[in-house]
């Protein structure tokens, strides 16, 4: 039954939001076309994502499958630190999405998990988005248990790819992966003062020239 989790989440989304999937598509098109213009403030990627996230916020495996509630854990309170097993799943997903190579940084070299934990601990970040990141981890684990009879961390690379491509088929899954990728890019390319991109490793790899002056630790987001 839990195989359907991502699809069910998607259906729920479609019921709640008129044309939910279409809007996500439209956002993507706009983004590619606008190519990140800053002269004009084009719609950012998050268009309608919060609507989506708000609908997702209350969704847990238990909520989707009340009959199976006994077997499903409730969504964790959003400000609590992620339990170790979920940390391990997130780290494994990040590493799969952004693998390490000799001389080229991957998720572990850019401190991607620590960076994501900072995001999840930021009181100013959207609670819905934080809950969505956490819940997605649970949904993935449920799906893997159902399909493969184990944990995501126990899968080989091909199986991980298969599972992630599987969840990508739903808009909930696609959004979850797109969100993790966004924070991977932040960990790769934000100023090292935020905890990712140690010593500018991401900038060096992509030959990116940061601007100056660079922010001191007491003048960063959250402290200004």
């Amino acid at each position, binding site marked *: 039954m839990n195989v359907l989790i991502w699809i069910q989440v998607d259906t729920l989304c479609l019921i709640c939001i008129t044309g939910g999937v279409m809007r996500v598509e439209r956002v993507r098109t706009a983004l590619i076309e606008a*190519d990140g213009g800053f002269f004009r403030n084009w719609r950012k*990627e998050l268009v309608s994502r919060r609507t989506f996230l708000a609908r997702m916020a209350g969704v847990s495996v238990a909520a989707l499958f009340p009959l199976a509630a006994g077997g499903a854990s409730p969504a964790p309170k959003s400000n609590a630190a992620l339990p170790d097993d979920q940390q391990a799943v997130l780290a494994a997903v990040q590493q799969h999405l952004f693998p390490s190579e000799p001389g080229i940084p991957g998720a572990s070299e850019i401190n991607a998990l620590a960076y994501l934990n900072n995001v999840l601990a930021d009181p100013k970040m959207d609670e819905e988005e934080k809950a969505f990141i956490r819940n997605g981890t649970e949904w993935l684990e449920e799906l893997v248990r159902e399909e493969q009879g184990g944990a995501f961390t126990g899968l080989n690379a091909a199986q991980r790819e298969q599972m992630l491509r599987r969840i990508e088929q739903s808009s909930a899954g696609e959004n979850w992966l797109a969100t993790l990728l966004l924070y991977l*890019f932040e960990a790769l390319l934000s100023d090292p003062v935020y905890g990712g991109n140690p010593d500018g490793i991401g900038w060096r790899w992509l030959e990116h020239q940061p601007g100056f002056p660079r922010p001191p630790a007491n003048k960063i987001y959250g402290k200004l």
Partner: protein
Amino acid sequence: MNIDFDVCVIGSGAGGGPVALTLAEAGYSVVVLEKGPWFTEQDFYKDEIACCRRSTYTPSLRDERHVIEEEDGEGGWEAESTFDSGWDWWNGNCVGGATNVMSGFFHRMKPDDFRLLSAFGPIAGANLVDWPINYEDLEPYYDKVEKVVGVSGRVVSHPYLEPRSTPDFPFPPTQEHPIAGWIDTACKEMGLHSIPVPRAILPRAALGRRGCEYSGYCGSYGCSSGAKGSSRAALLSRAVATRHCEVRAHAKANRLVSDKAGKVVGVEYFDQTGSTKTVSARLYVVACQAVETARLLLYSTGPRHPDGLANNNDQVGRNLVFSAGGSGTGDFSYAGLDRHRAQALRVRGPFVNRALQDWYTIKAKEFGAPSKGGTIEFLMRHPNAIARANPRKWGEDGLVWGLPLKRKLEAYFREARYLRFEVFCDWLPTDNCFVSLDPEVQDKWGTPVARVRIGYHSHDLKVGHYLADQAESVLREMGADNVRSSVSGSPPANLVAGGCRFGNDPEVSVLNADCRAHDVENLYVTDASFMPTGGSVPYTWTIYANAFRVADRMVERLGGPRVASLGGKAADSAVIDLNQGSKE
């Protein structure tokens, strides 16, 4: 009755700064209420997270949002709050407003922009009118902005060069990227006139500010050198230095209170703790950016203004306009260039500074009669790294990750640069583009938020496509690959005007030619709200110039200058502390 100040200005951006400076220099006491915090140059860093990925210079959408009404495709309108959509409509809510984060592309409007109706005739479905003033009325103030705010550039002859009272800019152009020369060459070949773009950026230290440091990160960022001519750096610092101007940060105007005669008698505002305060003045100026100005007036009902201040003819919020148009890109791969050109292309820091106005009036068969066109701006792809990386995750059929994503990033970042263009054309005012009070959604203070209907006129798209096609042909002439563009009726929320348009007929305008409300004798509006049509250039220079013009009318009305003005050379050499801003 005690009056606290001569003038109370609500909003500290392009509309508020010139009024505060002019009145303070004339010896009148001024208070400026600014909703946001007071950042200084010591708070601005090239930090993509703080600048552009989180809300630092704008409110949290959870606390304060807008409701946007879009066509639903079935003849109706569907509304969604910006908190739900994530489409942030705030621009620079801090001392200096959005001018802190502007790119400073400064163009004057052209004489025809002041008389769109009589120059080009009516267009069905568009509420076109001529302005009640003409270019000659504003020219002295465009000139003043060049000197006081600091505009750098170089005048070249071209078919649509507007008349000037001085031969050239007071400051030479900022340093230019080598690709500017490539644009010039291509345009010359095509018989076009590429023009150096005037910038509100100082190329060297002047006016008590430092010159540009060419970090390569300008638009969207606060300026850490003070070279950018923000209202904060260029105007409010000087206004405060006169000791006649007080800027109150974290002061969110709640409503203007008016008496039985219809006159404004005070402004109620919330301070940082949420307490309600009141301030009174002889004259009141609203300059909160077009959407918020309309919202504040609509919310400020009074005995003589039951439907909102200055709204007795139901005009407040109507005829909102944006900058119509679109944008495009062309790729220049290092591999496709000889060594010298590739090396030149890699240069980072200087500006492209090129625009085309050859089609400011379009004379093309498909338009029939001559038609109003617009401006094409060239610029490099913004250097923000996260913003450049993030779209790479989308492939033809879904997400890209793993090693393919990494190879894609390498190619995008290392192998090419991307020259972009932006098209600016008129957004025709229509009955389907306006601001009202949302009947349900409220901000954190419990007051109704602005609801914005953003319908557009199909003519705007026609003009946008025409100009984008011309811009694409320039990129192709330059040898760019993968040239593409996008024109849509989706408005840029940072280029907004109208809503309280000025005019001689109170039936169809909110303000008179002096930008004083027709039906409120001591109320002025000096942000972009006054504009009945927006021209085909970014608005900031025109907002600054008009606010200086209106400020002069206010000084006259109050009885002329009380003290000798600091203007001209004295101001240029004055040593001014740029860091009077205080974080409370």
